[in-house]
C-alpha cells in the first residue's frame, strides 16, 4: 500500500478524531499536495459534523417516574420470591424435624412395634420412606400453589 492509499484509509478515523498526533501530521502533509485526499477529508468532516448534529430523540415525559415505579414493582416481586423461598425452606426443615421427633415419640409409645398391613411403621426404613413420600407430596403441592399465585399476579 503506497502513502496515498494508506492516508486515504486513515481519513474516516481522522474524522472520528481517533488518529494519534503522528498520523494526523501524516494526513495533513499528504493532503497538502493531494487534491483527492483533501476533498475526501472535507467530505468526511461533513459526515462527522452531521453525526454530531443528528436529531436528538428526547426522553418521553414521565420516563423517570415510570422507571422508578417499575423498579419498586420488581423489587416487591423479588422480595416476594425471596420470602417464598425462605418459607419453603423453613417448611421443609420443620417437616423433617417433626418427622424425626414424631418417630422417637412413636417408638417410645409403641415400644418399637406398630404394625399395619404387615408393615412395622416405626421401623426406621418404613418411617423414612413414608416421611419422604409425605414431604415430597407436600412440597409439590406448595410449589404448584406458589406457581399459580405467580401466574395470577402476572395476569392481573
Amino acid at each position, binding site marked *: 500500500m503506497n502513502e496515498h492509499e494508506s492516508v486515504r484509509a486513515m481519513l474516516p478515523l481522522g*474524522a472520528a478524531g481517533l488518529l494519534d498526533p503522528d498520523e494526523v501530521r501524516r494526513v495533513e502533509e499528504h493532503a497538502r499536495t493531494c487534491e483527492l485526499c483533501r476533498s475526501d477529508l472535507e467530505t468526511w468532516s461533513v459526515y462527522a459534523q452531521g*453525526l454530531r448534529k443528528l436529531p436528538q*430523540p428526547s426522553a418521553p415525559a414521565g420516563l423517570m417516574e415510570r422507571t422508578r415505579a*417499575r423498579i419498586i414493582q420488581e423489587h416487591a416481586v423479588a422480595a416476594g420470591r425471596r420470602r417464598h423461598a425462605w418459607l419453603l425452606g423453613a417448611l421443609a426443615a420443620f417437616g423433617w424435624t417433626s418427622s424425626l421427633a414424631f418417630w422417637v415419640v412413636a417408638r417410645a409409645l409403641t415400644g418399637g412395634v406398630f404394625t399395619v398391613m404387615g408393615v412395622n411403621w416405626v421401623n426406621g426404613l418404613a418411617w423414612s420412606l413414608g416421611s419422604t413420600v409425605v414431604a415430597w407430596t407436600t412440597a409439590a403441592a406448595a410449589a404448584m400453589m406458589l406457581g399459580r399465585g405467580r401466574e395470577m399476579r402476572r395476569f392481573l
Partner: protein
Amino acid sequence: MILAATMSLEGFTGDREIARLRKGDPDAITDLIGRYQHRLYRFLVRMVGDPATAEDLFQQTWIRLMEKIGSYDARRNFEAWLFAIARNLAIDHLRRRRGISLDEPDDSGRAPVERLEAAGQDVLTQLLDFERGALLAAAIGELPAIHREVLTLRFEEDMKLEQIAEVAGVPLSTVKSRLHRALESLRTRIEALGKGLYERT
C-alpha cells in the same frame, strides 16, 4: 449541546450514588436516572430504533443495575458499566428480532426511502440539508447494530476509544475497525440513497 452535557459529566464517577444505593437509599436511583435519562434513552433509540422498545429497555437497564449493584467494581468506569448493561439488553433484544436492511421493507411494509417520502418531507432538500440529519439518522438505522453502537457512542456520546471498548466488551483495535467500517458503510449508503432519491425527484 452534547459537548456541554459531556463536560458536565466530567469528574462524575457515580461513587457517592453507588454508596447510597448500596445503603438502600431510594433517592439515589432517582438522581442517577435523572442524570442519565436523556443520553441512555437516546443510545437505546439508536440501537433498537423504536421508542417504545427503547423505553422498556431503559427501565430494564435500571432494574438490572439494581440487581448487580452489589457486585459492581468501583474501579470500573460507572458510565461505561451503565451503557454496557443497556447495550447488552439491546443486543439481546435485537438477536430475538429479525434485522432489516436498507432495501427490505420494515413492519410498515414500506422501504426506508418511501418512509421518508411518506413523512411529507422534501427528500432532496433533506439530502442536501445535512445539518438536519434526518436522512443520516435513517441511514444509520439501517446499519448493523455493532456499527450503530460505535457511531452513536463516539459521535453523540463523545466517548473515548477505551470507554467504547468497555461498553462493547471488545478490544480497542476492534472498536477502531468497526468504526472505520461503520463510516465507510454509512457513506456508501448515503451516496446510494442520494442517487436513488435524485432520480425519484
